[in-house]
């Protein structure tokens, strides 16, 4: 079974040209999507659904920085241990507490805008670091710690999204 990168004809790496992934995804879907087999027999329709499902899952995994990093580390035998490993550097945790307090205090969409922009800027920085650790230094154990931080920020980002719904 091919891995997600091979499926799209890509070299496994964290740094990824999203446009190239998107193009491959679309080319593949136009060959195997169930809409191409609407008139086919059961066997082909089933195969088309299974393959498309798999391609969709691989695409979703590679498109998301967190999931892509997690997948790459797993390929290299490193578990990110997000659920079990709660050890985080103190300065990172303090920063997180501040951000969460800011989220609790933010009642206006404008305040949420500012907060979300800050969280996304931090995510971008972490992603650059992960690219260095994974692709250049192949230091997967160190990368795992950075991926855990990224997952933290992803959760916060999602909570900001939820807060918008209450702000309006």
């Amino acid at each position, binding site marked *: 079974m091919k891995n997600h990168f091979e*499926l*799209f*004809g890509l070299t496994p790496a964290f740094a990824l040209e999203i446009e190239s992934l998107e*193009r*491959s995804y*679309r*080319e*593949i*879907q*136009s*060959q*195997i*999507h*169930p*809409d191409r087999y*609407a*008139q*086919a*027999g*059961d*066997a*082909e329709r*089933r*195969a*088309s*659904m*299974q*393959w*498309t*499902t798999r*391609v*969709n*899952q691989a*695409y*979703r995994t590679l498109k998301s920085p967190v999931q892509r990093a997690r997948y790459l580390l797993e390929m290299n035998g490193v578990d990110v241990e997000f659920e079990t490993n709660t050890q985080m550097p103190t300065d990172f945790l303090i920063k997180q507490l501040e951000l969460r307090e800011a989220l609790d205090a933010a009642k206006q969409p404008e305040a949420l805008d500012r907060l979300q922009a800050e969280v996304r800027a931090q995510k971008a920085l972490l992603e650059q670091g992960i690219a260095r650790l994974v692709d250049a230094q192949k230091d997967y154990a160190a990368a795992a710690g950075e991926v855990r931080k990224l997952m933290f920020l992803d959760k916060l980002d999602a909570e900001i*999204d939820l807060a*918008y*719904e209450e702000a*309006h």
Partner: protein
Amino acid sequence: MALLQIAEPGLSTAPHERRLAVGIDLGTTNSLIATVRSGAAAVLPDARGRPLLPSIVRYLADGRVEVGYAAEARQSEDPKNTIVSAKRYMGRALKDVAHAEHAPYDFVDAPGMLQIRTVAGVKSPVEVSAEILKVLHARAEASLGDKLADAVITVPAYFDDAQRQATKDAGRLAGLNVLRLLNEPTAAAIAYGLDNAAEGTYAVYDLGGGTFDISILKLSKGVFEVVATSGDSALGGDDFDHRVFCWVAEEAKLAPLCAGDMRLLLVKSREAKESLTTHSEARITAKLSTGEFVDLVLDSETFCRITHHLVQKTLAPMRKALRDAQLGVDDVKGVVMVGGSTRMPQIQHAVGEFFRRDPLNNLDPDKVVALGAAMQADVLAGNKPAGEDWLLLDVIPLSLGIETMGGLAEKIIPRNSTIPVARAQEFTTFKDGQTGMSFHVVQGERELVSDCRSLARFELKGIPPMAAGAGRVRVMFQVDADGLLSVAAEERTTNAQASVTVKPSYGLGDTDIERMLRDSFEHAKDDMHARARHEARVDAQRLLEAVRTALNADGALLSAAEREEIERQAAALAAVAGSNEHRAIRQASEALNRATEEFAGRRMDAGVRRALAGRKIASLDL
């Protein structure tokens, strides 16, 4: 003959026969049917040239059924037996329906989906919808002069699994081969995008008679990719009518009304609403059965005020869809307006203000969904040559999950996942010697199960007794290209001794559908068996043609022995395909399907390789 062409490799494919395929917009207020003829999509009108069919069904005591304008004309006279807006009840229990007390029907609260008691017996919303579809089906066969093969039926993008399944069941009940359930805003995007050669990110704002959808799509080089969708499957023009009705009742100080008067005033309210699209005021006059007269003038300012909160209700889903797509209003190149309710000036104004640009109204908001559905039906029927077709990537509108301890919903497939999609989750036993595990499948975004839509409950039995935590059960969710869910569970530690697969059915099982089919044939004096034979023959021909096409395209992927086996099974099917033995036809079809399973997998693999090879060549060109 298919047999000869399969048996002789290298013979070129026969010219493709155009298949009749239609797109159907099964609307809350009106329904339409359209098809592609000589390259252009067109709505098929009735014998009197009217394109719309009011989605109204009247049941008569003698068993006759009136559909459309005839039923519409009698609605205030016979409100209990004249069902309007049945779409609002699809896949819904009585407690899910807002303003049920204002509807003049005799509801029967059945598990899964409510039913309505009429003079002709208890009817499910699926049966009511099927009556509408049957009329459209007959209209298409009359105007196209041939048996109809396939149909695409549209559904609101925000419809949940229960509502989608009910729609598909209605299609089946109306004798249609439902090629695909297509989301309404996506259908509109196809019609709009192809018409305008549009590229970039577009929003589709679709406010119909009873449902509201907002979809954000990326259009690029023959690909329509839905990036996010949101909405409210119980918000539409009906609610604006209802607001006007309440205003009338209050202004005229009316005592509680009988069903007929209520229906009459709702019709008058709707007429006033429509009139206010082009006029600054509308007069509402009615003579009630009590002898009372209603004579009021509604001006557009008052109308805007009493419906303001309804307009505001569409803004939250718009913000949510944009956030889910991680886009801002400035990223959206255009907003396509769909659905008759978008004719209301306050809607145009609110949407224009939100997106800071004038909405696009260049396609008829009543017809655009049916036209897009017809175009997609044409592609699915295989009528478009490769290169002229397009690819549609749609998403699931609401998260799917499972109930965990404490009544919480654990999401397994998040909303806006591209379909088809599958996800698995493992659960462990929590008691020593536990031999069963029950599951509750839910759909929705809320944390509490009680705030989500319950889709199915099932139990996995026969788990061998083990210590707590040692038994592992894997639950697999699969959503197909119609957005329909099936769930499978299997015990993992003991080589799948226990497994179960469920398809949520919402009160309508296969046996119910069969019974309804039988009932409907008794009236039509048709023959169930004739239909089963016909369907088996059509399916067999389709399968033979598909296998022939596959062998011609990718025969090289098979060894001589493998090819021989497929051809042997194809010949066996071809030998019985024309007979009246529908069981023999089904058996031979299944055998051929089994024989081609491995081949089908290899063809997908080859498709992926072809796609990547094409990419490499393309990148060399750059």
